[in-house]
């Protein structure tokens, strides 16, 4: 309708499509790099349950509510849940993966500087979801 031509709209849509293609390509490339777990990564089994986190290192030591790791190493988290869905999150390291009962999800990170960081549950899991928190201690190797 109307006697005008629509070419500005098509140019604009073209620009939007080009922008989205660029965003998508960048995101794809970044994710492709992030997904690649280093071969020498140490495995830590992370168990979420109402309402605390349990961590089991490769050597069998277990920690509840806190996790000690060393700088300069890569860690692979194998995340499981014993009851409902939780979401394992170390926000400072952009580590996020759901703990789904009946599944083992993996995610990895390699801390580079000593420090103390928050671990939290980011998926609603009931009464004390708000306080399902833990602490990550990154230490220099002894």
């Amino acid at each position, binding site marked *: 309708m109307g006697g005008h031509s629509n070419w500005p709209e098509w140019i604009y*849509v073209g620009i939007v499509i080009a922008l989205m293609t660029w965003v998508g390509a960048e995101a794809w490339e970044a994710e492709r790099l992030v*997904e690649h777990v280093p071969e020498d990564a140490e495995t830590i089994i992370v168990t979420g349950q109402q309402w605390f986190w349990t961590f089991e290192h490769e050597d069998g030591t277990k920690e509840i509510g806190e996790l000690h790791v060393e700088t300069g190493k890569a860690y692979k988290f194998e995340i499981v849940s014993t009851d409902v869905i939780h979401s394992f999150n170390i926000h400072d390291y952009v580590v996020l*993966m759901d703990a789904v009962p009946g599944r083992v999800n993996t995610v990895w990170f390699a801390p580079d500087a000593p420090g103390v960081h928050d671990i939290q*549950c980011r998926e609603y899991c*009931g009464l004390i979801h708000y306080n399902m928190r833990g602490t990550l201690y990154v230490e220099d190797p002894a």
Partner: protein
Amino acid sequence: MVLELQKPRPIWQIMFSTHHTDVGLLYLITSLGFLFLGGSLALAIRAELFLPGAQIITDSMTFNRIFTVHGTTLIFLFILPFASAVGNYYVPIMVRYKDMAYPKLNAIAFWMIPPSGALIWLGFADFTWYATPPYSIISAPGPAADMWIFGLKILGISSVLGAINFVVTILKCKHPDMSIGQVPLLAWSYLSSSLIILVAIPTFAAALLMLLTDRLGVSGFFNPAMGGDPIAYAHLFWFTFHPEVYVLVIPAIGMMYEIIPRFSRKPIYSYNSGIFAFVLLSIVGFSSWAHHMFATGMSFTEKTVFMVGTLAAVPASAMHVFNFIATMWNGRIKFSTPMMWSVGGIALFFGAGAGGVVNSAMPLDFSTHDTYWVVGHFHLFVMGTIAFGSIAFFYYMFPYVTGRMYNETMGKIHFVMSFIGTILVFFTQHVLGLYGMPRRIFDYPPIPEWIAMNQIATVGAMIIGVSMAIFLANMIYSSGKGKLANTEDPFGVGGKYYYPFEAKNPSH
């Protein structure tokens, strides 16, 4: 249009009527009632989060119940019925038919809403508006959870019946002289969103039944202890409710398509691209459901497919924004209250859309997923675009419905306060999410940034609360005592020259 308050009728004549404007009025009043109920829960949530520790809500279970009912109410009992209200009023007039195609079915669809609203409010379930299993199966207390499931079930049936009615009215009852390419964009928006409902809702209806039997212990579809898979529910849920976002937003955009050309005193820039974008959105809306599930352990390929599907919705949404701006360009714009709400809604739509790109890009999603970023993002959509468009249209139809004019100054104050409040609350929540605050938490550790931003958001919410009180007062006062409106041209913007069909209903 009905002039309800100029020709008073006993209330039961409206309640038992099947005429489209009467049913529309019932939808309108019900949805606004739930807007205020759901909004007051939002204020309770914000007041609670003003400081760490318990403020006004003493235990986390009550808090969890409040945010669940808040979300369910505003999405299913405010926005959806509001869209049906507008559709009931305008779609038959726009396609020049005397009523909806099935008037009794229409009334039945409306009368399913009060009982489902009662089930949701009396139950006060706690498992969030997406009822994620296995929490909703093994941990959520009954009968609240079961009442929520039944309430949603009834609402789903009501939406499907309403959608059938809109599709048949638009496609089969339109005036024979009018081709489908001449039907106004508002009616096109109802056609697109109704088609989405017809495809999407049955999936969720099945998921709800499976959830219910799981809760009863007779099946284990989503219960890992019985061999089920909770992620299957997430797929079924988001297959329905990602497109459902477009069910909510498309009518609101259709309402803006009605308002913006009229107050710009110019024809729509491109009617055809409006239709194209509606149809495109309702198709690609289905290609993006699993971007809600990037963190559930999907493969890289799945994530890529759904990221592309999600990004594909951006150009279609952008076409609408372009159309609106191009329509206003060089127009003689009259900034009456409905126009201000529409323009504000477009600005916030743009902001919400830009934030949405971040959510759909895979690595960035892990930083924002299930944090307050997401809360800010979808509230900016739901409040900033859908509710703004709906309130714009409410002001627009007010003189036609009541025969009286609302108070323009109060309407503008309502807009300015709501706009400022919306920006304060939801933009702050985006930043709060980047600082890592998870959503749906009753209490938070005393991190200074979290406290400061929660306080800004709470102040913003209070500003919105006050503006809504002004809105309520304006509505009540003006519908009884407001000055009489000129129902031919209540806003003084001149003739309906952009509008090719006479807005006369043969039965009136």
